[in-house]
């Protein structure tokens, strides 16, 4: 169970030799305690996270989500009927759970899309999904423009969309390309190669390379998007992930077996046990660390600061026909004074 990425912890608030940019600090003030204050506050309020899984049926979506969050959170687990028929159109099913770990409470919502890609004619099957995502943005926007706003607007926007690629070993299907082209502009897409235990190591790396190439050729920007890298550190880290690890080839399982005296999650086959969290067997641990342990907050921020803002700008633009960039209420509100603060003579 090698964990690739060590869990990040902030530097301790020990007063080092104070550096300064503009002023000379003559002693310890205590500004760095704001880190602790902030952490306490955020732990009290709790977090929301909404993850969507898209892919043809039988690719192991529900199992993977259960494995990711080590609990029965998928739709199959919470519905009565275990043998559901494949629906005639794409349905959107959102199920919410509250999970807690280390004092941190998270409201996790798993959005499943049964029926995607399963019909004979799959034209425009991404449309219900796109509609659902935009509906969540709309809900948030409506709350935000209210006059009397809630203290904390409930966040139902989709933060992350895991797209399951079928392990054919050849290349991406036209459906995959169409879906990702349309949706990479409205949501963070993380492509994932499902059921990776059907490919050998060489097949796996060749397939990954081909998929990466195809995505690039088609101009599909999956998460982490190049244009949103904030600084050099992010860029190098993300470049490494983009060019080497993604798309992650994963195997999911919620059954435990005994291997070398330890209980591990795995799949038992006549020729051996595939350990889910073993990096030599599959890249599940990388996906888990990437999504949960290092980039969870970033996923939420990109959704809020970029995708949501794009939606909002488009929505408000269509609305008043005002030129972009000008204040929406610029015609009604008095102009803001140029300098916000009068200075003493």
């Amino acid at each position, binding site marked *: 169970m090698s964990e690739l990425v060590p869990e*990040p912890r*902030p*530097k301790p*608030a020990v007063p*080092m030799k104070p*550096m*300064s*940019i503009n*002023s000379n600090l*003559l*002693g310890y*003030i*205590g*500004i*760095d305690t*704001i*880190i602790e204050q*902030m*952490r306490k*506050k*955020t732990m*009290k*309020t*709790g*977090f929301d*996270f909404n993850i969507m899984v898209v892919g043809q049926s039988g690719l192991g979506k529900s199992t993977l989500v259960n494995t990711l*969050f*080590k*609990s029965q959170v998928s739709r199959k687990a919470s519905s009565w009927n275990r043998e559901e028929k494949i629906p005639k159109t794409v349905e959107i099913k959102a199920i*919410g759970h509250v*999970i807690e*770990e280390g004092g941190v409470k*998270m*409201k996790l919502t798993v959005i499943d899309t049964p029926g995607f890609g399963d019909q004979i004619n799959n034209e425009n099957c991404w449309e219900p999904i796109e509609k659902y995502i935009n509906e969540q943005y709309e809900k948030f*926007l*409506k709350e935000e423009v209210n*006059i*009397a*706003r809630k203290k904390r607007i*409930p966040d139902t926007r989709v933060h992350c969309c895991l797209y399951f690629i079928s392990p054919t070993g050849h290349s991406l299907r036209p459906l995959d390309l169409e879906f990702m082209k349309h949706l990479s502009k409205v949501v963070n897409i993380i492509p994932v190669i499902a059921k990776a235990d059907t490919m050998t190591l060489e097949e796996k790396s060749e397939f990954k390379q081909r998929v990466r190439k195809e995505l690039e050729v088609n101009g599909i920007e999956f998460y982490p998007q190049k244009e949103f890298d904030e600084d050099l550190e992010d860029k190098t880290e993300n470049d490494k992930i983009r060019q080497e690890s993604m798309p992650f080839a994963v195997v999911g399982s919620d059954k435990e077996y005994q291997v070398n005296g330890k209980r591990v999650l795995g799949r038992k086959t006549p020729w051996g046990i595939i350990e889910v969290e073993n990096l030599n067997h599959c890249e599940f641990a990388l996906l888990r*660390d990437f999504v949960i*342990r290092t980039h969870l*907050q*970033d996923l939420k*921020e990109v959704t809020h600061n970029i995708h949501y*803002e794009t939606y*909002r*700008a488009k929505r408000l633009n269509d*609305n008043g026909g005002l030129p*972009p*960039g*000008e*204040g929406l*209420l610029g*015609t*009604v*509100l008095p102009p*803001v004074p140029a300098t916000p*603060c*009068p200075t003493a003579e």
Partner: protein
Amino acid sequence: MLRRGEGCRTVPLAGHVGFDSLPDQLVNKSVSQGFCFNILCVGETGLGKSTLMDTLFNTKFEGEPATHTQPGVQLRSNTYDLQESNVGLKLTIVSTVGFGDQINKEDSYKPIVEFIDAQFEAYLQEELKIRRVLHTYHDSRIHVCLYFIAPTGHSLKSLDLVTMKKLDSKVNIIPIIAKADAISKSELTKFKIKITSELVSNGVQIYQFPTDDESVAEINGTMNAHLPFAVIGSTEELKIGNKMMRARQYPWGTVQVENEAHCDFVKLREMLIRVNMEDLREQTHTRHYELYRRCKLEEMGFKDTDPDSKPFSLQETYEAKRNEFLGELQKKEEEMRQMFVQRVKEKEAELKEAEKELHEKFDRLKKLHQDEKKKLEDKKKSLDDEVNAFKQRKTAAELLQSQGSQAGGSQTLKRDKEKKK
């Protein structure tokens, strides 16, 4: 508190997932972006506002002391970048200049209220833009207002009460007694009690340190009882015992700034920076800013629901507002046009009047001129007649004379001739 939605059940985890690092991820992102904190110091000139800021943040901020001759209250704002271990803070300190110096102080609070509102307005404008960049916006809203009370030892001045009443719904107020070394211990307790009771009886809401989080509830609770803090500021370091400490030296003793028995400076620093800085920022954003926003939007006529209590859609509201505004503009344009036309008419009438007058004058003058001319011609004629008459008489006279002289002249001639002979 996390709300449980309908159909949301708590699910137990079978192993370590790892999202307990989420607060760390959040905090790390904030650290890399940096924090900002804005303090407003309100108080009369000479109460030690700048010195206290220097003492609180252990640096020497630039600025000269103000004089007492300011014509009105103004606000002076400066921004500094401080760094401690890996945390960067953008600190903005706004000070009042000339507060309490005027003879008539009725309007003294106005520039302060306007300044605070202007910061809210700037944030609101940014929030309402179509293309906005809220996550990199430099937040200039005032997070805390330190109100400096003069150490009279009796009670609050009426200026203090009025100003604090105007500010308490717009900003977190922490009242402090400045230059507390002017008051003795017993007077101080009486003074504090008097101040607190006056604030309560006048309904002034000062900032209460939050007591809902167990880890800080106790310390915040005790500190709430010590308000207002009696502080002393000093940037001079003196050797006391074998340590260098910040203090003020008097002939009768030395007042140590960081000694809790001497003044409440340490308590203020603890509460302001080390325990509640984040809460102050949050209160500003969720309470004071929301109140401002609500009032401002309602003022502009936006409503959340119409009389039939159906929620307005975003589009409809803005479209209606826009049409209303355009209609108003059109009406104004019509009015202006009408007014313009009227004024033009009036002016025309005036000018016509003037023209008529001029014509009349011209006619009059012309007539006058003609009369004069006629008179002159008459005169000329009569003169000519006279001249003619005179000429006639002259010629007649000459004729007579020449006849006479001819007769006489011939005689003269004869005489001349005879003489010659």
